[in-house]
């Protein structure tokens, strides 16, 4: 057997890890199933909603929007405006689900047309808001500024995307919540840290370093074998997460309705500048999670290669994962100074909602570069540096 096969056996294909993966698969399945139930209530409620929403699908209808607003106002008068409270109170009634969803949709259309009010501190969004801001900059003679280019770019993208349309997209909304928000980090990336952390540290704690470092392939090929096995292990665990949450999110309702809609139909992605269909975005999201999982795993491997025991490696890996969550909680003046650390910290770039859900762009030598492309570049650098340091570390590693 090759070294790679042995490393894979040590990391993934062994009794303990297989049991762990089965437990995780069961957990992810429950998460996929229960979150869809939380969002849309029983299967009967979903079927009812699916039937009712068929008549509402397409471009906005002012009459239906008005009707939905009336129902929505009644609900908020009774339960308050907290979105979780509303979601809980309506989940078993197809009519109220539809009314609330259509009201939210009409708000998104309004946002698309009018966007952020001039007094808002948010980044400018919406056709009218962008037009007016661009006019202001033109009057000030700032056509050559990056700000002007960015606004024109946003406007161009927004016009190309066209107005949002209403589609029954509940199950996909649930899927992207599972794939793209903090829950994913707790469910997927934390177990990943535990799985990958022993990859190098175990050789020190077990004393196998003596055998490895004195052997012909113990300084270079072993690193290649270990890194390949890390990539395979991380892909497998991410796939387990993706498959379990996908299958058990959709299976109970036996429907993939909305798969061909634009991702702007999903409330969380309403302001996305990317022209993906929902199914395309599912593929991109899966690839993104595999990619970021792989980069995170390589970073964990680097930490593992410098640690004497795996629990230290787990601790530091988790600290690195969540460091920018802590930083993001600081005041605005601090955040402005450390914005790149927050933007490209693992807690942000592993979230598809953060990366693909908005229209953040970066100024690279005067050119506009989108967040995903910039993130791929930055994560690529992280990964290359980590791999380099791992090889260097193994080359100079000694056993005292």
């Amino acid at each position: 057997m090759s070294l790679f096969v042995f490393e894979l056996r040590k990391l993934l294909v062994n009794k303990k890890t297989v049991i762990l993966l089965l437990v995780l698969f069961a957990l992810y399945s429950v998460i996929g199933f229960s979150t869809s139930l939380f969002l849309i209530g029983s299967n009967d409620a979903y079927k009812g909603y699916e039937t009712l929403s068929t008549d509402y699908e397409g471009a906005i209808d002012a009459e239906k929007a008005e009707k939905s607003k009336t129902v929505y106002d009644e609900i908020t008068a009774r339960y308050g405006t907290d979105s979780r409270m509303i979601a809980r109170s309506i989940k078993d009634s197809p009519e109220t689900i539809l009314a609330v969803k259509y009201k939210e949709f009409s708000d998104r259309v309004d946002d698309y047309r009018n966007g952020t009010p001039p007094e808002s501190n948010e980044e400018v969004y919406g056709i009218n808001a962008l037009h007016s801001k661009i006019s202001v900059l033109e009057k000030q003679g700032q056509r050559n500024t990056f700000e002007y280019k960015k606004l024109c770019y946003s406007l161009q993208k927004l016009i190309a995307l066209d107005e949002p349309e209403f589609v029954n997209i509940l199950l996909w909304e649930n899927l992207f919540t599972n794939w793209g928000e903090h829950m994913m980090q707790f469910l997927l990336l934390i177990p990943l840290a535990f799985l990958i952390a022993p990859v190098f540290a175990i050789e020190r704690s077990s004393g196998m370093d003596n055998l490895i470092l004195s052997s012909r392939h113990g300084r270079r090929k072993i690193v290649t074998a270990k890194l390949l096995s890390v990539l395979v292990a991380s892909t497998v665990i991410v796939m387990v997460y993706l498959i379990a949450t996908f299958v058990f999110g959709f299976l109970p309702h036996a429907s993939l309705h909305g798969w061909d809609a634009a991702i702007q139909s999903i409330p969380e992605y309403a302001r996305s500048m990317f022209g993906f269909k929902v199914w395309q975005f599912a593929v991109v999201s899966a690839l993104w999670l595999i990619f970021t999982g792989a980069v995170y795993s390589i970073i964990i491997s680097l930490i593992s290669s410098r640690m004497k025991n795996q629990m230290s490696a787990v601790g530091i890996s988790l600290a690195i994962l969540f460091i920018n969550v802590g930083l993001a909680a600081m005041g605005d003046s601090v955040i402005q100074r450390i914005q790149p650390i927050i933007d490209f910290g693992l807690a942000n770039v592993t979230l598809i909602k953060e990366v693909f859900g908005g229209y953040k762009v970066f100024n690279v030598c005067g050119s506009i570069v989108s967040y995903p492309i910039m993130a791929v570049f930055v994560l690529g650098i992280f990964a290359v540096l980590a791999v380099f340091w791992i090889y260097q570390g193994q080359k100079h590693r000694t056993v005292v």
Partner: protein
Amino acid sequence: MEKIYAAAVRRKDRRRVYIELKFERVSKNYKDKKVLKDISVTMSTGVYGLLGPNGAGKTTMIKIMADVLRPDTGRILYDGQDICSIGDKYRAKVGYLPQEISFYSNFTGRDYLEYSAALKGMEKSYAKKRIEELAYHVGLQNDLKRQCRTYSGGMQRRLGIAQALLDNPEILILDEPTAGLDPLERVKFRNIISAYSNDRLVLLSTHIVSDVEHIASKIMMMEYGVIQHMHIREEYIKMAKNCVWLVKMSAEKLVKYQNNAVISNVIAKDGVMEVRVIDEGKPFADAVQTAPTLEDVYLYIFNYLPEKTRR
């Protein structure tokens, strides 16, 4: 045994008969403690024994030789080339049995040997053949399917020996190879090493003097990070030629006497103690001079000679 001989002979055609490994002023410190002090020694084909008390620096020297530890100053030359600069090429020639053998919890004996073979870059078919051969020679042929963690200490040691010999290394480095082996296994191990060492360099570090006494072509005595002596067995015997005595005394007298003397052995015979004493002068009038063994010499060097002459 025949198979080991045969393998050695078969490979001999492809081997150079002469190997040279040269330590040039090798030093190693752990923080402020000097563990190796300017070691300069040249080894060639044959078995070298490395003897010394705990903390003498034997394991550090061996780790540096196995390339798992780097010296602070000095270098080791393998056929004239610095082993740090030739790296993989040097390690491909080395078989190393560390003092403490470790295993992965889910590996069987066969997995462990196959993994070692993969680390050494051995061809699969050759590795398979060697594993069968060596498992037979170390008496583990029926235990390869068992998980390593269920092995006794002696079995783990034998598995480690098989691992070190797996790729017929030119340089075999063994750190306390017989710890935990029973007398029969130790004799068997010595025979394997003797048969094996024909055209190779074997360095064998041990506390057990008898392990090296009859198979080592040269024996190094090490203390305080310095190789104090490197001679053949007969030269060591000469060193303590007139210093070993047999004395008969009562048990009570022995209790008082032993704190101020170097005693290598005591045998009780009919209520009288026959004591083997190391002393440059005749310790008692009735003491009878006897021929020293290597163990006597070891005690003579490390326990009898004044410490300041050894530092």
